[in-house]
């Protein structure tokens, strides 16, 4: 497409797209749920992106007294080595969010590709892919996660790999069912009669109409991945030397934070997972309210 702004065609198409986008954004932010969920996501994203600059101390060096409760010098107190827990928390946000979004990205990519292929091609391709998905869906995920993490090198990236492999099947199911219904819609029929290629029908007619649902499920994938990663780390699986919300809980458990009454070591990561989960959930539900209820008509 000619993107010269002086081109009248581009201008009308652009104006029309911009109008639609603006309208969409306005109706999205009218929803209080979305505004609230988005604020939480934005808060943690900023914390995650600028964590290195926000953290007041090097989280790995001893910068205060041992087991000190929260104070103005150490917002979230210190741990058994006198390390600053607030710095741990802020820097841990980066890793936790990174794992969440990376897993959502990869498993979303696999899930959408498999679902789109299975749903559009149908027949034997569909049958083969969906039986594979069924197998992955019925395998108890957490034990498998534990076993896989025990065999792979304990790095953050292998955690991402494992979680991605196990998270995509549900997405592919949802995408497939959407494709099956969109495939029968009049505008797809119209495109077929106009001699449009299958690839273009898939990517220009079917995929864009599923974007809200894909987006919502990507959000759920983020929540799931953050929780699963924290769960694995809590059991000492994955990279225990990395700093994230899961390893914070792991070290708090190993070093008997509960016995020391050091609640300030346990509450921040736990609460953060909860609040971020809540925010993302509200965001997803809000989007589904706004975009899926006022329908395509």
């Amino acid at each position, binding site marked *: 497409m*000619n993107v010269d702004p002086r*081109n*009248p*065609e581009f201008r*009308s*198409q652009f*104006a*029309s797209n911009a*109008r*639609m986008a603006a309208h969409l954004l306005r109706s999205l932010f009218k929803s209080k749920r979305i505004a609230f969920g988005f604020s939480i996501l934005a808060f943690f994203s900023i914390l995650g992106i600028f964590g290195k600059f926000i953290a007041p101390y090097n989280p790995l060096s001893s910068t205060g007294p041992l087991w000190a409760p929260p104070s103005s010098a150490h917002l979230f107190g210190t741990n058994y080595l006198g390390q600053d827990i607030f710095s741990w928390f802020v820097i841990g946000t980066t890793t936790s969010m990174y794992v969440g979004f990376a897993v959502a990205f990869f498993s979303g990519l696999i899930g959408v590709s498999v679902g789109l292929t299975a749903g559009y091609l149908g027949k034997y391709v569909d049958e083969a892919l969906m039986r594979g998905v069924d197998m992955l869906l019925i395998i108890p995920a957490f034990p498998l996660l534990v076993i896989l993490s025990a065999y792979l090198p304990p790095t953050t990236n292998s955690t991402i790999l494992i979680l991605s492999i196990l998270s995509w099947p549900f997405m592919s199911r949802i995408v497939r069912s959407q494709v099956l219904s969109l495939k029968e*819609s*009049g*505008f797809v*029929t*119209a*495109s*077929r*009669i*106009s*001699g*449009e290629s299958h690839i273009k029908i898939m990517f220009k*007619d079917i995929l*864009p*109409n599923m974007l809200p649902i894909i987006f919502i499920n990507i959000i759920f994938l983020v929540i799931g991945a953050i929780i699963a990663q924290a769960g694995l780390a809590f059991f000492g699986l994955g990279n225990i030397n990395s700093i994230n919300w899961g390893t914070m809980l792991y070290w708090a458990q190993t070093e008997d934070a509960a016995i020391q009454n050091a609640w300030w070591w346990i509450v921040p990561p736990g609460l953060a997972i909860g609040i971020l989960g809540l925010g993302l959930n509200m965001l997803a539900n809000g989007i589904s309210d706004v975009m899926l209820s006022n329908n*395509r*008509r």
Partner: protein
Amino acid sequence: MEPIIEVKDLVKSFRATRGVGKRSRSTPTVEAVANVSFTIKPNEIVSIVGESGSGKTTLGRLMVRLMEPNSGSIFFEGKDIFKMKSKSILEFRRNVQMILQDPYDSLNPLYSIEASTKQPLNIFMKKMSAKEKRDTVISYLEMTGLRPAEEFLGKRPGELSGGQRQRVSIARALITAPKFIVADEPVSMLDVSLRAEILNTMKRLKESKGVSIMFITHDIATAKFMGDRILIFYKGTIVEHGKMSEVMNSPMHPYTKLLIDSVPSTNLEEARDYLSFNEEADIKQLMPAGNEGCRFADRCPHAMSRCSAESPHNVKVSSDHEVLCFLYG
């Protein structure tokens, strides 16, 4: 004149599903289109009339090669459309278009009217400049009655009424100057008050563009208004066909008579006659494949014993009027 479309012994059957999508070899097949043959001449509107479930939509989808038949063939300008290779398929797509039934579903909600209408041009007129394409889109939109077309270009389907959307669909179907169009109940989803306008638009475009139209409908009044010729479709077979005026003035087949009688009338006497016509008719679904006998036998007031035993043959009434019934020989 050489026919533009020739349908020969076309058969399409579906396997019925029993329960929740369970299929087995024992499930019966139903013939949605059973051994249908007819021709359509250039610049002619042929109305296909049949009740819901008669297989007329299946026939329409076969005509544009959206599905494959079990047997038989359709020739477009002498070439069998089911034996075409990809290059001639594209040429076929350019020449044969379809107007779909549901205007609320036949335009992608995400694209502007301009983008939707232009899509066929992007496929078939790759050499056209953006400006030419835009002008073509505007002229076709105006032709179908969307004036001023410039105001509609940037709108989404959601901002248009059903009638306006159906006009967009018609413009889109016509934009590659096809020779043959299948219109599958194009007005059945529209308000009654809008129908005449859309139908008039289609008739006018047929005159000015010289296209042939296969007009599928369940409403015999609409069929009469639109068509030069008429095919009466019942359970997958053509029970009567011929020139519109002849079939309407002297309907031969009992089903055709029923259809013409069942046009709602303000005359109470006539209405009573229609309501008492074969009250106990058991409206069965499509006929199982391979069954002998006339498909209308169980609803026919003139049914004879041979009607359920043997299949009737086409009887020529005049040069352009045939009926499939034992009453006439």
